[in-house]
């Protein structure tokens, strides 16, 4: 009795599955249509339009149109100030991502391998800043880094007699890097922790039992196996830092302008839409290139592991 029921179920199952698949597939696809239209109209089309305005000219009435030109891009390359902002942005983004990597590895390791309570507390602290606006966090850093003896950092340094007088960090590149590190640190820790959590602990135990010191276990086993998390985190932090403009505006002042600030300036102060659009295209290009490269890296890894 039971066996024949099972047999019926087994025979019947593929049919039901196929039927349900077919029945679901058409309406299921249609469910994406509203968002597709919404994004096509309010995201894709505007992005293309912005790309187009970067190769057009703006007349004295502020109307953007023909003739087509690449002069905005030429200006970006030839004018020293703009080229410097571009390199500043790249440098700040690379340094921030590198620092985030170095500092996130220990945090992610402790987060993954500790007692549940410790894990929970660390996770909470890492995620906590995400619910606070970037503006508030920027002002927090302004209070800490404030130049002169009233800033928290200077007060600590001077009370402990580490430095004779106040140091000036606010409104420099260092302040922007500190602020960006603070804002985007969770984007590094979370992918890393998820990658580290997937590593079979037996592999590390085996290495340790065979006599490898802790740093060798890390370099030869943990680090290579956590590469996907590292690549994902690095890409995220880099992209977000390169595209940010709130943190440099609050902490960088006039001396650490990034591409985002330059775009805002060109469009809202100078009202030069085509030039602002050209900078935006360059920024998007850089972010896409880094994303594409990291995707290529991850794909390559997957292939190598499979073979």
């Amino acid at each position: 009795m039971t066996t024949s029921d099972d047999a019926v179920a087994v025979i019947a199952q593929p049919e039901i599955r196929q039927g349900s698949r077919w029945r679901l597939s058409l309406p299921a696809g249609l469910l994406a249509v509203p968002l597709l239209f919404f994004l096509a109209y309010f995201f894709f089309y505007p992005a293309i339009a912005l790309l187009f305005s970067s190769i057009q000219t703006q007349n004295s009435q502020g109307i953007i149109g023909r003739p087509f030109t690449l002069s905005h891009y030429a200006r970006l390359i030839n004018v020293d100030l703009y080229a410097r902002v571009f390199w500043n942005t790249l440098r700040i983004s690379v340094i921030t991502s590198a620092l985030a990597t170095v500092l996130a590895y220990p945090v992610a390791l402790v987060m993954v391998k500790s007692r549940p309570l410790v894990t929970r507390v660390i996770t909470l602290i890492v995620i906590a800043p995400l619910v606070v606006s970037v503006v508030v966090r920027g002002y927090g850093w302004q209070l800490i880094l404030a130049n002169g003896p009233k800033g928290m950092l200077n007060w600590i340094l001077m009370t402990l007699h580490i430095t004779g007088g106040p140091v000036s960090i606010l409104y420099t590149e260092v302040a922007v890097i500190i602020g960006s590190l603070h804002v985007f640190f969770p984007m590094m820790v979370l992918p890393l922790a998820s990658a580290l959590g997937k590593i079979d602990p037996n592999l590390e135990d085996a290495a340790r039992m065979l006599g490898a010191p802790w740093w060798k276990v890390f370099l030869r086993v943990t680090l290579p196996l956590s590469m996907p998390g590292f690549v994902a985190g690095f890409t995220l932090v880099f992209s977000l830092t390169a595209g940010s403009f709130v943190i440099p505006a609050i902490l960088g002042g006039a001396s650490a302008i990034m591409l985002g600030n330059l775009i805002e300036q060109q469009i809202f102060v100078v009202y030069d839409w085509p030039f602002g659009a050209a900078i935006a295209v360059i920024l998007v290009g850089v972010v896409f290139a880094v994303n594409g490269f990291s995707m290529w890296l991850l794909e390559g890894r997957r292939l190598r592991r499979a073979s």
Partner: protein
Amino acid sequence: MDERFSGLGAFILYAITTAMMIFIMAPLLLVMAVSVSDSYFVTFPPQGFTLKWYAKVLGDRDFLEAMRLSILLALGTTAGSLLLGVPAAFALVRGNFFGLAAIKGFLLSPLIFPSLVTGLALLQVLTKLGSQDARLNLLIGHIVVTSPYVIRTVVTSLQLVDENLEDAARTLGGQSATNLLACDPAANRIRGRRGRAVRLHGVVRQLSGHDVARQFRIFSRAAGPDATTRQRL
């Protein structure tokens, strides 16, 4: 416990982790401390204790109006991005059509676009369209930016749902739509938990979504006094 870490390695790990926890919390705690500090100028260490700044801000009409707009925008954005994003996520997980991967990439692409650029591009198009209602523009911009988060979260949780449960419900006579929403306890449980996370995520993105907001604030100033009075941020 914690015998995985020992000796110098453990010391370095815990030292850096502790330092980073302090690094993360310091600016947040300092802002809180300064908000109850008695002195008019910011000094460190903060002096005195007072709640007068809170009283002042709660009595400020500009603040209250901005707060109201923020909350309304957060609710509107959450509703909008869930309404558009959840069905789209279903389509991505359960659908079986040509170009699925491309469409998924397209729907998630606002994630890697710098939100400053998204805001500018949208501003340019909305200006051309003559859309002067800054609140509506803000809502559209925020839905664009938040919808990929909804998709990513819902897609992940849907992949955890055992489709056999839904098939079972269907063979027992349920309709596919009602299965998804009611008959399927596992899906429901997961959806409930994740759904909350999604909503929170959306609201959080929105409340800290000054990137987009800033564009429109400036835009509304440029658009004239009428827009400015309606749009205080």
